[in-house]
């Protein structure tokens, strides 16, 4: 700012700073409430993976061989659910709020911008936790899943923190999609990605080439990380999966960044 400006810093007198922790907490709390009260969101993100698990893991499990299918599916449907929560929360939720001017109003308030994103990420994490814990519970009670306590903790943490790359992907979609086309766009990315990464049908049952293709997809790596916790992954090294996920996150953030600048240049009424 130019030094000649009549700077009135003394006007900033009342009170100090708002409590950052409180802002984050409230933002997260209301973001969560907002999502959970939207039946469509809650149903499609929480119930869908659970429904799939019950269907494929419990009811239609023909118990062939001694492949630990019920344990396996906790990891893959967990990944599926976490991914859905993140993609819909960011990709659809943010697009709608952005397109209609709500995000603009928030940006005009003194809200620290990161609070908004942090709240959305933590909401995705909470949904991830709810999904993976429900799957575990159902698996243990009805599916004969036996896991050590540390394995459960580790698997849930992997899934909960694994939402980050998908939040980044959702963010990228959020800056490019229009409010009305966002749901369609998210679905068309979400569903093929889940399928090709072996979240519905175990990846080793997919055609060979698709198995190879899967290694380029982030959901594959997250599901493998979760599977490795119980020792039934495909055997790639932990680091390889983690690096792949970090790489994907950075790539999506880069795309989001381009979308953000593009968005800034647009004329508003």
């Amino acid at each position, binding site marked *: 700012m130019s030094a000649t400006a009549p700077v009135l810093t003394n006007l900033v007198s009342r009170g100090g700073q708002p409590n950052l922790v409180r802002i984050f907490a409230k933002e997260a709390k209301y973001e969560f409430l907002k999502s959970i009260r939207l039946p469509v969101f809650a149903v499609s993100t929480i119930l869908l993976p659970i429904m799939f698990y019950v269907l494929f893991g419990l009811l239609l499990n023909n118990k062939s061989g001694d492949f630990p299918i019920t344990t396996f599916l906790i990891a893959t449907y967990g990944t599926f659910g976490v991914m859905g929560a993140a993609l819909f929360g960011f990709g659809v939720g943010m697009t709608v709020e952005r397109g209609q001017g709500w995000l603009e109003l928030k940006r005009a308030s003194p809200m620290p911008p990161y609070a908004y994103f942090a709240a959305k990420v933590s909401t995705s994490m909470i949904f991830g936790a709810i999904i993976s814990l429900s799957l575990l519970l159902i698996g243990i009670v009805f599916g004969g899943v036996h896991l050590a306590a540390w394995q459960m903790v580790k698997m849930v943490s992997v899934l909960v923190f694994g939402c980050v790359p998908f939040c980044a992907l959702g963010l990228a979609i959020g800056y490019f999609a229009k409010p*009305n086309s966002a749901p369609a766009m998210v679905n068309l990315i979400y569903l093929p990605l889940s399928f090709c990464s072996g979240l519905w049908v175990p990846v*080793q049952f997919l055609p060979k080439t698709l198995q190879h293709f899967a290694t380029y997809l982030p959901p594959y790596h997250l599901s493998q990380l979760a599977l490795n916790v119980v020792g039934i992954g495909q055997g790639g090294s932990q680091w390889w999966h983690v690096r792949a996920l970090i790489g994907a996150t950075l790539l999506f953030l880069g795309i989001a960044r381009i979308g953000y600048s593009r968005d800034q240049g647009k004329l508003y009424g």
Partner: protein
Amino acid sequence: MTAHSTAQLESKPADKKPGIPAKGRRNSHWAGYWHLLGARLKELRREPEVVFWIFAFPILLALGLGIAFRNKPADVSRVAVVAGTDAENTAGLLTNGFHAEVLPRAAALQAFRLGKVDLVVIPRSDGSLEYEYDPSRPESVLAKASVNDAIQAGSGRKDVVPTSAHISSEPGARYIDFLIPGLLGMNLMGSGMWGIGFALVEMRQRKLLKRFLATPMRRSDFLMAIGSSRLVLMIVELVLLLGFGALVFKLPVRGALLTILLVSTVGALTFAGLGLLSASRASKIETANGIINVVMLPMWVFSGCFFSYERFPAIMQPFIKALPLTALNDALRSTILEGGSLRAQGSRLLIMCLWGGVSFILALKWFRWA
């Protein structure tokens, strides 16, 4: 487009009849229908997302998967031989067309459980071999048979009937041939459900339906225009995907074009009906989105777009076969790949018509304009 030019024709001053003010024009009976159809098609054409997801995306998907699966080498069966007395010997017989490794017993069984190997060969101390395989996995069954052949032949078995084999990669039997009709079916479902369900709910949310209702527009014209716009789009989808498949992947189109067109039309109308039903009451696009997902997702998974639904357990088969997308996919594969006749598709067409008809009737009953 045809509708476009008709619409323009309509807007020319019509012949003057007595009693009609010279300024005004007189609209023909079908003017409303043609204009609605023209408007709908223009809106679709001007929506880049629609163009991408309906036309470009399936082609990209076909291209990606098609290239990925083209010219794939004959499957190499992965076999684990449990370490033991005869292990090295046995593995030595499995060099041609197999990937065999010698593993300790526990590791071998673990690898088998995880699907890393298709078959475990356990040499017994008495010189015989034990195969550990999973009858529910086709590649496992295949591995057992071919490993057995290789070992028997390697150990000096003489075949009573001399045979020779050659690998078939003829058009018509490859994955891409299976895939393209599946993509077409999936696309017809997706664009029907989204293109109609979503569009109607959006119009309702914008209060545009209410605005139309306050004009002398006939409701049947409106619904017919929406339906016909689907058919126009369907023809474009059909020509694009089949043309693409035929040109790039030499997809054999063995059935009569008219039969294929008829099957697609029934499919498109079925999903138009389901789309209309999904949109009959929802007033917010979020709700419509949820409903459409709930309807589409099971079919996405079960109806055999990407892989055969035969892989699902037998108890599920009746349920899967009753789904409209299964019927559409089967009918499309049968007509396109096998040249099946329209009559042969009777039961499948019946399933689709039932779904479409029932949902259309329910939709008309429940539909809310305002």
